[in-house]
C-alpha cells in the first residue's frame, strides 16, 4: 500500500505502451500485413474521423445507456435470485438444477425467445445485456452467501435475526468480496453483450456498429478504433467498480 499511485499508474501503462510500440514497429517494418495490422497513424486518423465526422461519442452514449440499464437489471435480479438460492434450501433444490442447466445455453440461443417477448428494439437489447450480467452475478453471489462464516450465522440466530436481517447483516456483507467479483465479470460480459446485441439483434445506434462495420469493410483501422474505445470504456467501468468495491470492503484488514 506504500506504492504511490503514480508508480502504480506507471506500471499499468508499461505493457500497453510496449504493446503499442511492438505494433508500430511490426506495422512499419512490414512484419505484419498492413491490411491486418494498420499503422498507428491510420488508426489515429480513423479515430479523428469517427469522433468529428461520425459522432462517435453520441453512438457511445447510446451503448452506455443500454449497457448501464441492462447491467443494473441483471445485477439486481441476479443478487435477488442468488440470495434466494443460497438461503432457501427448498428454492435451491427446486431451481438450481434448472438454472445450472440453462446457464450453459449460449446467450445467442436466447435471441429468438428474447425477440418474441421483447421485440426487436431497445427493450430486447437491454434484456440481452441484463442476461449477460445476470449469470456471473448469480454464481458469485451464491458462492459468497454460502460461505458466510458459520459462527456469525449462529450469532444471528442467537439474536433472533429475521430473514431480512440475516441477509442484510450477515450474508450480504460476507458475500461482498464475492459479489464484487461477480460485478466485475458482469460488467465485462454485459459490455460484450452490449456490442453483441448490436450485432445479433436488429440495428440501432451504438458503438458496436463501429467494430462490426470495420469488420465488414475489412477496415482494420476502424476495427482497432472500435477495439480501443470498447476496451477503454470497459476498463473505466471496471475501475469504477473497483473504487466502489474498496469502499464497501474497507472493513477488511489490509494486506501488509
Amino acid at each position, binding site marked *: 500500500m506504500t506504492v504511490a499511485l503514480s508508480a502504480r499508474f506507471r506500471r499499468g501503462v508499461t505493457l500497453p505502451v510496449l504493446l503499442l510500440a511492438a505494433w508500430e514497429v511490426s506495422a512499419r517494418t512490414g512484419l505484419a500485413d498492413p491490411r491486418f495490422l494498420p499503422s498507428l497513424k491510420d488508426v489515429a486518423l480513423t479515430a479523428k474521423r469517427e469522433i468529428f465526422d461520425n459522432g462517435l461519442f453520441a453512438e457511445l452514449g447510446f451503448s452506455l445507456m443500454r449497457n448501464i440499464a441492462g447491467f443494473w437489471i441483471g445485477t439486481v435480479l441476479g443478487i435477488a435470485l442468488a440470495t434466494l438460492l443460497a438461503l432457501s434450501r427448498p428454492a435451491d433444490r427446486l431451481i438450481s438444477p434448472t438454472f445450472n442447466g440453462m446457464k450453459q445455453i449460449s446467450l445467442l440461443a436466447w435471441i429468438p425467445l428474447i425477440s418474441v417477448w421483447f421485440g426487436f428494439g431497445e427493450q430486447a437489447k437491454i434484456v440481452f445485456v441484463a442476461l449477460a450480467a445476470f449469470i456471473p452475478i448469480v454464481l458469485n453471489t451464491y458462492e459468497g452467501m454460502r460461505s458466510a462464516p458459520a459462527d456469525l450465522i449462529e450469532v444471528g440466530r442467537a439474536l433472533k435475526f429475521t*430473514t431480512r436481517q440475516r441477509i442484510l447483516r450477515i450474508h450480504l456483507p460476507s458475500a461482498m468480496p464475492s459479489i464484487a467479483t461477480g460485478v466485475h465479470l458482469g460488467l465485462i460480459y454485459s459490455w460484450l453483450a452490449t456490442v453483441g446485441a448490436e450485432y445479433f439483434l436488429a440495428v440501432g445506434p451504438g458503438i458496436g456498429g463501429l467494430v462490426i462495420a470495420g469488420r465488414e469493410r475489412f477496415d482494420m483501422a476502424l476495427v482497432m478504433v472500435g477495439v480501443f474505445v470498447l476496451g477503454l470504456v470497459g476498463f473505466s467501468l471496471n475501475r469504477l467498480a473497483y473504487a466502489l468495491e474498496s469502499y464497501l470492503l474497507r472493513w477488511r484488514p489490509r494486506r501488509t
Partner: protein
Amino acid sequence: MAAFFEAAGDAGIRMARRRRSRVVFGVAGLVLPAALLGFWWVASAKGWLAEQILPPPFIVYETARDMIASGELLFHAGVSLRRVMIGFAIGSLAGLCLGIAIGLSQKIEDYVKPLFLAFAQIPTLGWIPLLMLFVGIGETLKIIIIAKGALVPMTLNTCSGIRGVLPKYVEVGEALCFGRWQRLRLIVLPGAVPSIFTGVRYGLTHSWTSLVGVELLASSEGLGYLLVWGRQMFWLDTVIVAMIVIGLVGFAMDKGLDRTEMLIQRWKRQEI
C-alpha cells in the same frame, strides 16, 4: 417466508434430515423442468406461441430420437465437447496461473491487470481478423476463443479468492517461514477454493457460450453449429434439441464440479 428460508446452521437437524432430504430434494430438482415441460406442452397445444417458434414437445422428441438414431447428435456433441474441453482446460489453467500471480503480487497486478481488463472487454468479434492472420480459421482459432471465455472468469475469481484469504492465516504461514509454493499450497489455494470453483463454473459456462459464437463463425459441425444452423433453417426443434443437450452436458459437468469441490472441501461438509 422464515420457514422457506430455513436457517442454514442447525447442524443436528440437518444431519438427521440428510438422508431423507437427499431423496426428496433429488426429486425437487426435477419439479421445475417438469413444470417447464408442462407449460411448453400447454403453450404449444393452445398456440400461445407460433409453432415455428416453439414446436410441440413431441416433435422435438422425435427430432431428438432421429438425431440420436442417426448418430448425428452424438457426433455434434462429441465435436463440441472436445473443443470445449481443450479450450476450457487451456483457458482455466492459464486463468488459474494468472489469477494466482495477480492475487499474490501487487506488482504483477499493477503491471498486468489494466491491460487484462481492457482485453477482457473487447468482443471476440473484433479480434477475429487479427487472430485469423496468426492462426487461420481452423481448430486453433476456435480453441483460442473458447479458452478466452474460460480465462477471464477464472482469473478474476482466483484473484479475488486469494485476496479474500484471511490475513490471520497468511500470517501463520509467514511465522512458519513458508516459501511461495508452501504458502500457495497450504494456505492460499485451500482458502480460495470456493471462489476458484465459482470461476471454474462460470468459466465452463462461458466456454460453452463461446462455443456457439465460434461454431457460428466457421464451422460445419458441433452443437453450436446445430444451434445456429437450426435457427438459420428455422428448425427450432433442432435448436431446442441442441439447447437441451448443451444444458444437460453443462449440468452434468456442474454436478461433477460440485462433487470435486465437496471432495476438496471435506472439512466443510461436517461443519454445517
